[in-house]
């Protein structure tokens, strides 16, 4: 055989496998509004940068007639490429081949690319579209999942791991995305659950559709399993690209620097906040008035909306922002919002992203449901995450900082590097009404006009304690600042914290209240 015919043979062999499950299966995929695995990779990556591995890997199934079946690329495409010139490792499950089911060879292709991404220190992107375990392969399929989870855990905090759910992701398969840093879902396409509607119906007698059980909206709004919600696969890919510009390749690097940009003029910081602490406003308007180009990438926008988390740039450099949201549930901390913030803080700390905390909250949410859901252990996560973080930590108290909420929101006491307060700040054990009712309980009860007495005492308390100056007199805040100067001061303080070094006692790892 001449060299030319050998090369021709290579092309023939690869084109046979390149077509995935074949024309019919590809058309079926398109009819579901889904791209094929290869289309997805080529759309997400920079043009002509995809380099495929393991195209000719064969599946390991021997039983139930599987030995006679050909499964092109064993239902998963793996390789390397770049996104906006950032190198990445990527895999995409191919639903057109045996429903993207996971057998041992399929899993080994994934773990191989995972090992590469950890070794090379570059992000890993996994596109999930799979019916689940390949049942014909039995325990080998379970072994495959386990080996993936193990690497997800090893890679955690080393390289950013991104999961994109573009189809079903059910049973054991969902635990890989759950172990990764960011989960992207697309409306009507993504479906995630441990046990599907049919099992639930036979075992428990509860009827529910796949969409209502674990569709993109449910995962984005109710469960908090997903971090980014998109209406189409293309929108989803744009979100991934944007996120990748804001985070570093690995824990040994910093995120890319960009030319600084001023916030857009429409966001006027002083006009956003009402002075009455019980009136709502959108904390994102404050964020937009501080960050470069008023460009804020919000994470988990729809879940636990009483806290806002996300990435932006300040003077061209990425920061992570955590802010109470007075617009939703008055910005209280509760089980979900504590979980949400704590995980985000740990991501930022692991990947050298400085933290900005914007405080305006009345405290923790009262209620039997909260107590019974374990708000003690969940609320403790946020204390743990802030205390543990050694990246630069800046805190600005905008308005209310009451009680446990004041401590939890990156106070000086949890190791904040700089704490600023606006003149509108109220740093106290609780709001004036609650405090007056407790401190002056007897005076109010015994007064001729209890209501008038209560009003007077609330006013007294407000004047004395509902301000930033008591905390300032103790040195718990570094400066009371003019809201207008917030951006300028933050740029200065982040700049001077750039080479911050803080050590922690030697340990294998801490034991956070998971």
């Amino acid at each position, binding site marked *: 055989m001449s060299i030319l015919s050998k090369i021709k043979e290579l092309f023939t062999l690869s084109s046979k496998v390149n077509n995935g499950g074949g024309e019919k299966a590809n058309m079926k995929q398109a009819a579901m509004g889904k791209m094929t695995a290869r289309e997805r990779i080529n759309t997400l990556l920079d043009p002509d940068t995809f380099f495929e591995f393991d195209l000719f890997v064969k599946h390991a199934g021997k039983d139930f007639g599987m030995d006679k079946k050909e499964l092109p690329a064993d239902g998963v495409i793996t390789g390397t490429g770049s996104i906006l010139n950032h190198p990445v490792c990527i895999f995409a499950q191919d639903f057109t081949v045996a429903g993207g089911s996971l057998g041992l060879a399929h899993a080994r292709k994934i773990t191989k690319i995972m090992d590469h991404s950890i070794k090379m220190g570059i992000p890993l992107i996994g596109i999930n579209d799979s019916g689940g375990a390949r049942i014909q392969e039995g325990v080998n399929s379970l072994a495959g999942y386990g080996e993936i989870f193990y690497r997800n855990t090893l890679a955690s905090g080393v390289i950013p791991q991104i999961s994109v759910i573009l189809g079903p992701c059910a049973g054991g398969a969902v635990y890989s995305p759950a172990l990764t840093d960011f989960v992207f879902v697309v409306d009507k396409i993504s479906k995630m659950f441990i046990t599907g509607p049919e099992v639930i119906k036979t075992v428990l*007698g509860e009827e529910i559709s796949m969409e209502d059980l674990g569709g993109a909206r449910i995962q984005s*709004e*109710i469960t908090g399993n997903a971090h980014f919600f998109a209406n189409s696969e293309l929108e989803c890919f744009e979100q991934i690209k944007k996120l990748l510009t804001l985070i570093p390749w690995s824990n040994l690097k910093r995120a890319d620097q960009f030319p600084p940009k001023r916030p857009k003029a429409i966001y006027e910081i002083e006009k956003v906040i009402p002075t009455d602490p*019980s009136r*709502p406003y959108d904390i994102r308007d404050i964020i937009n008035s501080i960050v470069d180009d008023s460009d804020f990438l919000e994470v988990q926008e729809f879940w636990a909306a009483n806290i806002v988390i996300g990435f932006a740039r300040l003077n061209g450099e990425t920061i992570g922002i955590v802010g109470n949201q007075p617009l*939703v549930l008055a910005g209280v901390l509760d089980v979900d919002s504590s979980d949400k913030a704590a995980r985000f803080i740990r991501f930022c700390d692991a990947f050298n992203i400085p933290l900005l905390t914007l405080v305006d909250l*009345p405290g923790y949410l009262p*209620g039997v*449901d909260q107590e019974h859901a374990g708000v003690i252990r969940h609320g403790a996560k946020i204390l743990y995450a802030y205390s543990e973080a050694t990246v630069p930590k800046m805190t600005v108290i905008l308005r209310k900082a009451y009680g446990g909420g004041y401590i939890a929101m990156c106070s000086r006491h949890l190791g904040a590097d700089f704490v600023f307060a606006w003149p509108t700040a109220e740093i106290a054990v609780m709001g004036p*009404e609650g405090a007056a009712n407790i401190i002056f309980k007897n005076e109010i009860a015994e007064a001729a006009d209890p209501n008038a007495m209560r009003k007077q005492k609330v006013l007294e308390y407000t004047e004395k304690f509902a301000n930033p100056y008591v905390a300032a007199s103790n040195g718990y805040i570094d400066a009371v600042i003019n809201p207008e100067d917030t951006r300028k001061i933050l740029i200065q303080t982040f700049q001077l914290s750039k080479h911050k070094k803080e050590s922690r006692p030697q340990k294998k790892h801490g034991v956070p209240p998971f």
Partner: protein
Amino acid sequence: MEDQKKINKFIIDDTIYETRLTKKFLNRKPYVIKDPKKVNAFIPGIIRNIYVKKGQHIKEGDELLILEAMKMKNVLISHGSGIIKEIKTATGDMVLKDQELIEFE
């Protein structure tokens, strides 16, 4: 997912805040004090066997019924003594979590 735009009143520490409420907050179930006279299903499942009858005197520790769930036949045992007022389920019934099964007098 933009359906909770309404501004509501929301009280914390005697202060009334104006804010939006989340679906989860609106859907939370009020706490009900447990009635010791009622036996409820602790898990959804199927009633496989009922060992007791209406009017029967029950001692603490007596077996009441079998509730099969997740391929496990769970034996429900009486936590107290008393007379059965009513049995609100039958063998073969599929019951939901917290559904009332037996009421004591």
